[in-house]
């Protein structure tokens, strides 16, 4: 349905179109089909690749339908469209999670401060909301404007959800276009949510060297009353910090978190501690070290009430998304709730964050003295004893392990007093407890791991929020010329295929090659879990400014917005292209000129999927770890055989660049070694100048030689002129190129896809 006049006027009103900060571009608040041509242009080169996880469909009562091969469902859907439909469904889950988080955060802050509460991100950030500006055409000025952003997301989502119904969309390409839409909306929600909490809670925004905070379960002084918050929405966690401050209790109580609430809490108060990523939730909670467990929302393991009660800890749920069947107690007096918590071990849902904070702190103070005996982790002797029945032969544990770990060997050795193998299994364990459930001898494997887990503590830098405009001005030119070889974002969860420190290794390999390395969420936490010989983590070794060779923790999942935002700002601030309601112009600029790459090495939640899908629509390629294949869909070119035509912005002629850059938009790699060279390659851009390309090729060849061996056998695709061959490798590269019959390729300074497909954006718009 095309937009009617009334809707167009409504949009102009919402975005205050008459405010003249920039002319309104062609796509203010785009609907489901407004960016479809752009999506299809991407899909022409980067075909969807499907790996069905299930060959059936059981979404309606016409089914089950078998969709194997060329079979169709009763509704007519085929296996490709069904995969794309699932992708849309899962992306919508992710978008809804971030959107609802934003909605809750913004409404909570509007209740507190009013909707006119100003957005001020400090002296270093003038372009406050690059995503909202670009997608909606709105320059948000206050909390009320952020609510408009969430309302826009909600409005679009109802149409997207509708498209997943039986007998609706039937083309995989259109499902993908809709998934892109969901992903882009996700980014709008992320940005609105993070800006709201930055301004509402005074989180860091205009400083780069934020505090170094403690991470690791060993950092928690469990002798003190210990409160552990789990989830992704820090409203209640921050209320706990406020309560402790107001009652002068802050140094008497430990407040620590798992997942993003922990990260956001340390942005609010650097005295709070981070226990670790999602993969540590069960491990820590089963250890019983928490006196009170607090759940908010998203990626919270759903058997927490049971674990808390088994550990004799109190448990309070604080989000309407996760109620666990508990009584909502906001209307009860705090004393009464506390009495039931302490005397009857009753668990509650308390949606009033201030009341929840009071109950949680008082419960921790009361419980801690009685729980000292329970706060002991399993000793090796105890662990060997409870493992006594294992002979390592039945392997039921291994077969259940989604990370394919050799649990049988580890437990069998632990039984005999050797915990080395179990220690290494622990470092790869994603904490699902499937092994324990499967064990024929009921060995409490997660607990046994306590005896093998090192209690090291690490330093992580508190999330810094948006990238500063002045930083963008400094790095804009070298990024676009290619002399800073790339901007890499590590996001997503910690269900890594290999060790917990895979991300730290990848991040460091890139930072030392002068990439701009940014991290968020559980990936940012995992990146701290590796020390060099001097005991330093990468956060202590590399600069925190957004510049070549940095390691920057932007913050929690919602802070991912700032890295996409930085790419937009390069086009907007450095290249001075207007971004207002100009999605295609910004995305085309990023795809062709900003060497950015997202990495989701442990893609677990649907939120990670929507973030990644959104990134692709912005022109940012994404590299996934092997678990990512279970999302069923990737976007890949056929390398040199695909369509690499662009328009040369100067001559307006179509030019076949013959170079596959970026080569794929979403792919899975099996090992961290392969991921390293793939990330480097995904940062190549058509706009690279010859010196810039030489620097990128230097990284590519050096990393390839280091981890794979020999010269890459696709150099002929990426070397465009002899000037681009890195000097150190000149002789061997020239010999190789000669052998494969390489011919020089065109180097363009204004490559664009605008004009190669039907769009309202004129080619002139790409040139300033």
């Amino acid at each position, binding site marked *: 349905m095309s937009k009617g006049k009334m809707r167009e006027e409504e949009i102009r009103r919402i975005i205050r179109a008459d405010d003249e900060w920039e002319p309104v571009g062609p796509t203010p608040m785009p609907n489901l089909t407004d960016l479809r041509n752009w999506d299809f242009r991407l899909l022409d080169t980067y075909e969807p*690749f*499907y*790996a*069905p*996880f*299930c*060959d*059936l469909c059981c979404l309606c009562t016409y089914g089950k339908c*078998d969709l*194997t*091969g*060329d079979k169709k469902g009763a509704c007519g859907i085929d*296996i*490709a469209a069904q995969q794309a439909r699932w992708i849309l469904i899962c992306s919508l889950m992710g978008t809804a999670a971030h959107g609802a988080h934003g909605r809750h955060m913004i409404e909570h802050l509007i209740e507190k401060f009013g909707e006119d509460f100003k957005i001020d991100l400090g002296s270093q950030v003038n372009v406050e909301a690059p995503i909202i500006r670009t997608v909606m055409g709105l320059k948000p000025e206050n909390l009320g404007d952020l609510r408009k952003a969430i309302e826009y997301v909600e409005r679009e989502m109802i149409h997207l959800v509708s498209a997943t119904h039986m007998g609706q969309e039937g083309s995989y390409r259109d499902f993908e276009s809709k998934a892109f839409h969901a992903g882009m909306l996700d980014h709008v929600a992320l940005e609105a949510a993070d800006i709201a909490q930055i301004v509402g809670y005074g989180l860091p925004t205009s400083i780069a060297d934020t505090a170094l905070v403690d991470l690791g379960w060993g950092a928690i002084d469990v002798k003190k009353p210990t409160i552990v918050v789990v989830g992704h929405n820090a409203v209640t966690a921050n209320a706990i910090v406020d309560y402790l401050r107001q009652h002068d209790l802050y140094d008497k109580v430990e407040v620590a978190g798992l997942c993003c609430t922990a990260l956001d809490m340390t942005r609010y108060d650097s005295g709070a501690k981070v226990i670790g990523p999602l993969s540590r939730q069960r491990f820590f909670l089963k250890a019983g070290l928490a006196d009170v467990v607090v759940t908010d929302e998203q990626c919270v393991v759903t058997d927490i009430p049971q674990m808390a009660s088994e550990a004799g800890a109190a448990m309070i749920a604080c989000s309407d998304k996760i109620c666990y069947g508990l009584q909502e107690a906001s209307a009860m007096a705090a004393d009464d709730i506390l009495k039931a918590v302490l005397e009857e071990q009753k668990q509650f849902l308390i949606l009033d964050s201030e009341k929840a904070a009071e109950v949680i702190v008082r419960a921790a103070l009361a419980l801690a003295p009685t729980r000292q005996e329970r706060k002991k982790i399993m000793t090796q002797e105890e662990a060997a004893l409870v493992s006594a029945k294992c002979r390592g032969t039945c*392997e039921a544990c*291994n*077969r*259940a*392990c*989604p990370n*394919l770990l050799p649990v049988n060997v580890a437990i069998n050795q632990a039984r005999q007093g050797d915990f080395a193998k179990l220690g290494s299994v622990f470092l790869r364990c994603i904490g699902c407890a*499937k092994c324990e459930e499967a064990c024929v001898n009921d060995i409490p494997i997660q607990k046994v791991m306590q005896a093998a887990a090192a209690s090291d503590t690490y330093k992580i830098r508190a999330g810094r929020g948006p990238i500063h405009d002045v930083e963008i001005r400094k790095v804009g030119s070298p990024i676009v010329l290619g002399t800073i070889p790339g901007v890499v974002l590590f996001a997503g969860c910690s269900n890594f*295929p290999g060790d917990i420190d895979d991300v730290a290794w990848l991040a460091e390999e890139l930072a030392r090659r002068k990439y701009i390395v940014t991290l968020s969420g559980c990936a940012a936490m995992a990146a701290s879990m590796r020390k060099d010989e001097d005991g330093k983590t990468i956060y202590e070794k590399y600069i925190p400014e957004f510049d070549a060779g940095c390691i920057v923790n932007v913050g929690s999942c919602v802070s991912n917005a700032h890295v996409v935002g930085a790419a937009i700002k390069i086009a907007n601030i450095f290249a001075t292209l207007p971004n207002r309601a100009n999605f295609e112009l910004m995305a085309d600029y990023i795809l062709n000129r900003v060497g950015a790459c997202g990495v989701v090495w442990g893609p677990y939640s649907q939120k990670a999927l929507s973030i990644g899908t959104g990134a692709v629509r912005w022109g940012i390629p994404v590299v996934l770890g*092997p*678990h990512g*294949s*279970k999302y*069923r869909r*990737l976007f*890949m070119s*056929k*390398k040199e055989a695909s369509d690499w035509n662009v328009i040369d912005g100067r001559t307006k002629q179509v030019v076949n660049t013959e170079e596959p850059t970026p080569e*794929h938009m979403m*792919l*899975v*790699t*099996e*090992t961290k*070694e*392969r991921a390293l060279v*793939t990330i480097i390659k995904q940062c190549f851009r058509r706009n690279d100048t010859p010196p810039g390309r030489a620097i990128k090729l230097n990284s590519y060849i050096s990393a390839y030689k280091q*981890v*794979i*061996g*020999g010269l*890459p*056998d696709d150099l002929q695709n990426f070397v465009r002129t002899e000037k681009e061959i890195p000097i150190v490798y000149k002789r061997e590269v020239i010999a190789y190129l000669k052998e494969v019959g390489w011919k020089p390729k065109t180097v363009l300074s204004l490559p664009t896809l605008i004009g190669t497909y039907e769009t309202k954006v004129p080619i002139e718009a790409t040139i300033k």
Partner: protein
Amino acid sequence: MASEFMTTPYYKVNILTGTKAAKVVSEPTEAASIIDKATNPLYVFGAEVIDSPVGDRLLIDYALEIAKSRDIPICATAHVKKKMMELGVRPDSTYDIIEIVHFLKDKSWAGVRGKGFHDLVLFTGVRCDLAERGLSTLKHFAPHLKTFAICRRSHPNADFALPVIPKTEKWRVYLEGVISELGAV
């Protein structure tokens, strides 16, 4: 020649939710004869070939012998190329696992030696959950070829798969059986 319909693979994460499952190839003779019948096979080596000991050799040593017996071109995924070069063998392709699967879907693709589409693709050593996904892609989208997962964890989405072989010693015997049969066929 014993064969049966597959029931359960080693890893629960790979349990099939579907109707078309691999034919289980229990005997090395049968495996050798499938390989022998192919006119343009390809062998995909995954990262585990370089660090999985089988007897006193590595998995890659057996896989290389199978490849050598019929001059089967090799695609070295992940970082397998490094080890192959140490062993003095140059892979025909270094596409990563998902890349090679992407190309294999396309019947008009020239193949790694330019001889047209591969009619049989062997897989060994690819991380089991990832391999199962790639096999699923080929099952649905590449009707022009057959896949054979030479993996002791078993793969229901392949056309041909081994049974689960828990004991390393039996795995060694199976691999040696295939190699000696290929020598004999």
